[in-house]
């Protein structure tokens, strides 16, 4: 299958071959990382027999064979879903790489930051200090207020 959009746009080329119960197509490793290809392939293992081959340098041929009889339309749909998953995986890995320094920064702060270095004794002392501090607004707390004695007789 090939799609050629109108003038000025880049050509989108997704070509696949169909045979009985099988669809195969090539993936360019300059566009998709090995991680993305493996990730997409792994997701399809329960739905189809997935076979990877190396037809040329920087190319991976993906062959999907359905586990039961399939129509041509179903095979085309399978190839399309794989292509979508490939893009999804590629994006996920790219975002993961781009945000890695942020995650590492927060992990470093969580484990080694000064705020987290307080000992349990220090935390208890801080808690005690809060409890002992006088209430500047002198708001009575019901369970602390002394009950008034009723007048006798």
């Amino acid at each position, binding site marked *: 299958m090939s799609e050629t959009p109108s003038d000025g746009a880049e050509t989108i080329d997704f070509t696949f071959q169909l045979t009985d119960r099988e669809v195969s197509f090539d993936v360019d490793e300059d566009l998709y990382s090995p*991680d993305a290809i493996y*990730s997409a392939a*792994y997701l399809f293992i329960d739905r189809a027999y997935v*076979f*990877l*081959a*190396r037809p040329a340098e920087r190319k991976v041929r993906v062959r999907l064979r359905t586990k039961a009889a399939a129509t041509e339309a179903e095979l085309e749909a399978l190839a399309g879903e794989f292509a979508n998953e490939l893009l999804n995986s590629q994006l996920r890995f790219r975002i993961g*790489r781009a945000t890695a320094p942020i995650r590492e920064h927060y992990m470093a702060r969580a484990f080694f930051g000064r705020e987290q270095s307080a000992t349990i004794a220090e935390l208890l002392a801080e808690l005690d200090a809060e409890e002992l501090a006088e209430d500047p607004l002198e708001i009575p707390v019901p369970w602390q207020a002394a009950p008034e004695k009723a007048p006798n007789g």
Partner: protein
Amino acid sequence: MAERLELSTSLYSAEAVRKTLEAFAHLGKLGLEERDDAFVLLISDPDPDLGDDLIHEMANHALALTVTGRSPQQS
């Protein structure tokens, strides 16, 4: 006649292929040829209940083990 399954050494790990052979050993006579570019699995006398699917199941198994045993690459 033996069926052949060629798995590229650049895509499938040797460990995954070896474990796949162990896992499917009871389902037929299995052999392995190792070339520089491919692991060649030879399958003969497959379990008749499996029909043609044995070779494809082995390919899936090898791929799954390759993926799960692999650490992410920086690219």
